[in-house]
């Protein structure tokens, strides 16, 4: 076979390493001779590297891909999961040491004594993460001249002006307006996604943060509409989180009376 001829031609210390020797290298079990061969033979080094890449691909993509989510395992542990998943989880646990360990850790963790809570020293606002959809201020829809302007204005919402602001992230538009109410401004919003994605945002949680403190939690309705009330004037950040874990973040909106 031509490839075998190539190997002989290219290997500096023929015969080239066998497949079993390559596996031993990958497993960190190579003997002295194999290691010496590898140190001196770029060709066999490359073969080892390719084999390593293939196994790395398999490990990266396949590791625990059949495991139930941690949330499903927890529901199972507390007898809260739907009856139809119980058999599947139990069957999986018979063969999966990782999920068994997760449940052992959970069991010990739940057994830790409860303790009264002292004041929380650290801010609990989650930072914006890679993968969150950052919705950027586009314009006030009634003043399209702002769109694409070189100097993008800061988003300011005033309850007196009746302006509506528009923010965009990939495939998602969020409209916001502010209304004056008795106890403070009320932020009204609507999230509009691609038609096939819209249902996924129904029931999403909206949290409003001000000075790293949580102000309001609200929910998105079937039409994507939400309302946050009462708020205080000042700068706010808004996080909208869907049940599938998708998050839309809008930062630094200034609210004025």
């Amino acid at each position, binding site marked *: 076979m031509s*490839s075998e001829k190539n190997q002989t031609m290219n290997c500096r210390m023929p015969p080239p390493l066998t497949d079993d020797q390559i596996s031993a290298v990958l497993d960190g079990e190579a003997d002295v001779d194999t290691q010496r061969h590898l140190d001196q033979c770029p060709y066999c080094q490359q073969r080892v590297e390719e084999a390593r*890449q293939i196994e790395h691909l398999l490990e990266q993509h*396949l590791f625990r*891909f059949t495991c139930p989510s941690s949330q499903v395992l*927890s529901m199972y542990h507390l007898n809260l999961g739907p009856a139809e998943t119980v058999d599947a989880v139990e069957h999986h646990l018979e063969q999966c040491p990782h999920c068994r360990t997760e449940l052992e850790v959970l069991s010990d963790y739940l057994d830790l004594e409860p303790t*009264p*809570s002292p004041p929380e020293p650290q*801010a*609990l606002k989650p930072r914006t993460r890679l993968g969150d959809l950052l919705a950027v201020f586009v314009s006030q829809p009634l003043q399209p001249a702002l769109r694409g302007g070189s100097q993008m204005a800061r988003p300011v919402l005033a309850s007196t002006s009746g302006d509506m602001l528009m923010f965009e992230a990939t495939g998602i538009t969020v409209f916001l307006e502010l209304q004056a109410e008795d106890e403070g401004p009320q932020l009204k919003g609507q999230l509009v996604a691609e038609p096939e994605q819209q249902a996924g945002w129904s029931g999403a949680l909206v949290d409003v943060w001000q000075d790293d403190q949580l102000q309001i939690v609200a929910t998105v309705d079937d039409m994507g509409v939400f309302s946050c009330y009462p708020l205080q004037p000042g700068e706010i950040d808004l996080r909208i989180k869907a049940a599938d874990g998708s998050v839309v973040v809008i930062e630094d909106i200034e609210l004025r009376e």
Partner: protein
Amino acid sequence: MDFSTTPTSVLAEKCAMQTQNYLAQRENDPRFCYELLRRALVEGASEALTHVYQIYLPLAGRWARRHPSFDLTDESAGFFASTALGNFYFALRGNSLATFETLSRVLSYLKACVHSAIMQHLRTHPIVTQPLPETGGPVAVNQQLDKHLTADELWSLVRSIVTDPDDQLLVHCRFVLDMKPAEIAEQYPSRWSTAREVSVALQRIRRWLRKDPMLRQLATGEQPESDS
């Protein structure tokens, strides 16, 4: 007790107090928390939901910090607290809470949500604690193909290369469950009597996988060699 005229703010105040009682292992009355949670989870009332977050987010944050695996993550307690409360809400919204007989059980579930948030995060963001083996540097999987490949697709490809059911089980044990040959032999004694037998079979399977042109291309990004 009829709560129909009780303002949410009053419920919240009493629920916060009863939660402190529970945490201090004193006697507690869960009814205020139940009603607050009912308004939040069943009615989706923003005021109740806000109070639920204000009472339980700090608690969830503290639980996150006490979790044995928290230090292995690269995230804040706030992130796990927020993920846990979100999952708590999404799992229970519209639910009657009838399955929770005591406040202790509701809070155990919230604590389990904190645990799940941390464990799930570690599954997808494992922290490398061991140095890479001496031979070869960091492994670069072909990123472009990598992005579009799902685990199911890759598993189908593997099963088309390795067709024998026992061999497939071995690949599953090795690459999906990351089991050592001795563990595999111990778990399936009727198929492989010794770790050595498992190792020999695995060597053969790894050889096949390595030779497959499609898998090579996916892993290295190189076009398969033509035989001409």
